[in-house]
Every structure is written in C-alpha cells, then in structure tokens.
C-alpha cells in the first residue's frame, strides 16, 4: 500500500471567497476513503481540482509513484494518467445508447486517429456486457441513455467509471436518488473496486458511509476538520457542531 495521490497546502478562491483553504489530503492505492461535510464545504471543488477542472491558487497535487504533478495538466491528460470521476449530477450522453456510453468510457487509445481505426472487438463487447451486468443495465444496452431513470443514469455513470479502469476513482454522491436496495448494491461495487483501486466517495448518507467501512475525512469551509474512523469523527464535538448537530 503506497500513496497514490497527495495534495498539500491547496487553496482556491472564487471572487475572494475561499472555497478550499490550505487543504491537505492523501490516499493510498488500494484504499477506500469517504468524504463527508456540510453543503458548500468544498467537496465537489476538491474533485474539480484533482481532475483539472479548477486550477488552485496555491498548493501541490502529486500523483503516482513517479510523483507527477497534476497541476497544469489538461483534463484529458489527467484522465489518461488514471483519474476517473463520477459527477454529482449524473452526466451521461443522453442522445447515445447505453452501449455507446460504455464504449466511450472503455479503456482504449484516445487519439482521433486511434478512434478512427477502432474496430469493435469481442473482448470489448464482452467487457461492456460484464460491466452492464455488474451495474444492472444488461437489458438496457440498446436503449438511449436519455430514457433511463435517474437511478439508472447513476449506475451507468458508475459503470463508465469502472470501464475507464482508472487508478483513482472520484465518486461524487453516488447514492443520491437511489432506493435502499440500490444503495446497498452501490456500496458493494465501490467496496469491491477499493480492493484494487483508490476510491474517494463523497456522500451525505451516514448509513451509506458506515457500510463503506473505511477511513472518513470531514471537510468544512474548505479544509479538513477531522479524519479517522466514522465512530471517531462522529464523536468529535466540532464535527457534531458544524455537521451532525444541524
């Protein structure tokens, strides 16, 4: 188990408002980590920084054993070195079929001329079916993904994330809009993925976090308020004050 991602002293402000304030964070590979915190704590912004969507004002973000800096890399480059992301609001390509969505995400060469030469393979089709089976969308493969229910879109996006087979999975509020049974299945998939990958899950639902059974980081006002087991952080008076108490 070695450190995969290390973030140190990162700050971001939007029009003078500090959304992330001197944040430091580490995750190993493999590891499961849950991030909790009140709305506006900066959880999504934290993922935006890692994936290159938002450039921090200061700080370092180091990835992999070669300690490459993710800052200054384009979003696509970051994705290629092994960071995958599931968005808070499910974003799938609604005008395309579920199968096409999977195929877009599947780990394959990403350049235009690679894509032009791309041939559908048995292997690829098999992998798509495996993934679809895993996220319960096997019967929906030929359907337009815009026709899926909210929960199914969440599944599709999780499936696409797995299809990318990144080393670090950033999962923003995966259980939103899911039934308890679906939530349980999501936990299983994530726990399973965390056996071989680094997985960061942002979630509000405490039951969900408990089932992940992992180290928890509490964010508040853009920095880490507490870190440790769920029981440990939920007994922290500061955490109770800003988050749980309300």
């Amino acid at each position, binding site marked *: 188990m070695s450190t995969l991602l290390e973030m140190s002293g990162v700050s971001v402000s939007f029009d003078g408002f500090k959304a992330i304030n001197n944040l430091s964070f580490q995750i190993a590979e493999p590891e499961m980590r849950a991030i909790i915190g009140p709305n506006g704590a900066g959880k999504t912004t934290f993922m935006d920084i890692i994936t290159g969507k938002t450039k921090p004002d200061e700080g370092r973000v180091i990835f992999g054993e070669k300690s490459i800096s993710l800052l200054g890399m384009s979003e*696509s*480059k970051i994705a290629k070195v092994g960071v995958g992301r599931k968005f808070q609001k499910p974003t799938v390509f609604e005008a395309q079929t579920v199968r096409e969505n999977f195929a*877009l995400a599947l780990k394959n060469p990403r350049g235009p001329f690679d894509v032009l030469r*791309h041939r559908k393979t048995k292997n690829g089709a098999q992998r798509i079916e495996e993934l679809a089976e895993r996220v319960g969308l096997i019967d929906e493969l030929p359907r337009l993904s815009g026709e899926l229910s909210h929960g199914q879109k969440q599944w599709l996006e999780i499936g696409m994330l797995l299809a990318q087979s990144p080393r670090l999975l950033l999962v923003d509020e995966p259980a939103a809009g899911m039934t308890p049974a679906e939530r349980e299945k999501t936990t299983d998939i994530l726990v399973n993925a965390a056996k071989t990958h680094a997985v960061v899950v942002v979630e509000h639902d405490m039951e969900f976090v408990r089932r992940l059974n992992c180290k928890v980081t509490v964010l508040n006002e853009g920095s880490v308020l507490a870190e440790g087991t769920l029981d440990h952080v939920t007994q922290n008076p500061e955490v109770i004050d800003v988050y749980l108490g309300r």
Partner: protein
Amino acid sequence: MSQTFITRHPSTLWVLAFLGLFTLLVSVFSEAAGVGLVSTSFVKTLGKTLCLCLIAIAMDVVWGYCGILSLGHFAFFGIGGYAIGMWLMYARTEAIVAQSLSANIIPPTDVEISTAIGNQIFGVVGSSDFPLIWSFAHSLTLQLLMVLLIPGLLALVFGWLAFRSRVTGVYLSILTQAMTLALALYLFQNDSGLRGNNGLSGLQNIPGYEETPQAFISIAFFWASSAALALGYVLFAWVTAGKMGSVIRAIRDDEQRVRFLGYHVESYKLFVFTLTAVVSGIAGALYYPQAGIINPAEVAPIASIYLAVWVAIGGRGKLYGAVIGAVFVSLLSSYFTGGSAPDINLGFYIVKWTDWWLVLLGLSFVAVTLLFPGGIASLFDKLTRKS
C-alpha cells in the same frame, strides 16, 4: 471497408443509388446525349447543386455532429474555386497568347510570353506582373494540390488557435465570420494578385478542350460532381458512424464530460474542422468551373450563413438532411431570384419574388427551427417509419 460498411448502413446505400439514378437520367436526357430535354445550362445548375450538397454535408458534420457552428466554411469553398480558377485562367490565356504571338516572324522570348499573359490577366487591375501566389498556376497538378492544401492549412492554423483557447459557441461562430470576411476583404483589393472585385472568369473554358462543346464539358463536370458527392458522402458516413461519430456527438452534447473521459477534445475538433474544410475546398474547385466565374463576393460572410440555413432546414445531424436542405433551398433560391417566379399582385402591392425571397427564406428558417428542429429530414423519417 466499403462492402461491409455500406451493407451495415442502408441509408448510405439509398442515397448512393438515388444519386446514381439521378446522374444517369440527367445524362440520358441531356444535350450531350442528343436529347436536350435537360438544357446544358440546367445541367450546370444541377452540377453546381451537387457541389453545394457536398459542402452542406461537410457543414453538417462540423455543426450537426460535432457542434461547431462554423460560419466560415464558404471561405474554404471559395479558396478551392480560386485555386483551380488560377490554373484555368493561366493555361487558357497562355494558349491564346501563344497563338497570337506565333504570327510574329521572330519567335517570342519567355519574358515576352510571360508579360503578354500577365497583361491579359492583370490588365483589368492595371498590372502585368505575376504575383507570388501565381507561382504554381502553370501546373494543374500543383494547383490541384493547392485546392487541398490551402483550405486544409488555413483550417488547421485557424482551428488550432481557436480551439486551443477554448473558444466555443457564438464566439467561435463570430470568429469564423471574421475569417471569411477578412478573406473577402483581402480578395477585393486590386493588389491582392487575384484581380480584385473582377475575380477570375472564363472558368467554363477548359484548356485543351477548346473545341469540345459546353454540352459535353457540362456533363463531364456533372459526373465529377456526382462522384465527389458520392465519395464525400461515404467518407462522412464512415466518419460519423463508428466510434469517431460517437466521440464527436459526445463532444457536441457535453465537451467537458468528454475531457474527463480522457479524450483530447481540441484534437477532435481540429480533425473535423480541417477535414470538412478540405472537402469544402474540393466542392468549390468543382463548382466554379461550372459557374464560369468567381469573385470575392462569393466568400462574403452571408454565404456561410446561408450554408448553415440550408443544413438547419434540411435537418442537421443527418447527412441526407443536409443534402435535402442544399437541394431544396438552392434550387428554390435560383427559381425565385432568377425572375421566373410569377409576381403576386395583392392589388395594393406587388410581391416581387426577387425582393421577397430572402424574407421567405428567413421566415422558413425561423419556422423550421421552432417547429421542426429536426428539419425536413425529420418529416421524411416520420413517413418512412410509418410505412
């Protein structure tokens, strides 16, 4: 690729079959075949329309599939026309000059020939020197290469600058308008080396075929245009059908999301922009010999806007939609502006179609965009799905 590809894409097969049949019928009834049911000038109109279809499918790929609303693709079309026009004018003038000078007792020197050709071509703008850009005009091969290279390089440089700075949406459209406007303004200058607002003319006369009647030349260009459209259609159908099509449609719908999947969006846009620019150049190179003349007004900003209107009316995001739009609107346009449409007398006011056609076009554009966002092709789709 073609065999399996075409059988997997029956709509492409339909379009090709239809195009083949159409080409055959027009040829059979043309003056070249001795029938004359289809006049030579109408063969030219139809041939030009096929070229417009070709640039329309290019526009559909860049806009309808990839989401880049380029309002500058007619610049590439015009450049293709100018590039071939330079050779046509040079070679023909050279032949004329050679003939007139051959009467001289002392054989003319190379400089004399060159000055005489220069005088013929650039006399209208008060010059006789060959500008640098005419360096290759003596060679058909090199000018054909220019038809591909200049639109391709311009698109590559322009696209690289624009996409790299992530210029998108309406800003990109304005930038492409500025590009085509700049080209038009440059061409309008007398010292641009391309005869200012006179443009290049006499392009219907093909050097080496002075004796061949236009009836045959028009059919040859009609076939060439038809073949180019067929090839272009298959090329674009192939590009938009497979995984490439999936990626570029994804870019159209949510480019940021595509980046997070690891695709370098700018490279894809550049690829599509440049490829469609090259095809537009080819379309222009086939169009202007049939039109006979090209001048800077052809690349005025409005031309590229019309192109977008055709594609929108025909139905974007479907290649045959672009074809329908280009045929429908350009033929209607030549009917209404050609003076053959009867005026409507309202008693208190006479509707002259030459004036009102643009209003009608504008209104139908608004109507289609609001009522049938899928364009004419979507109506067509509904009909075929029912039956």
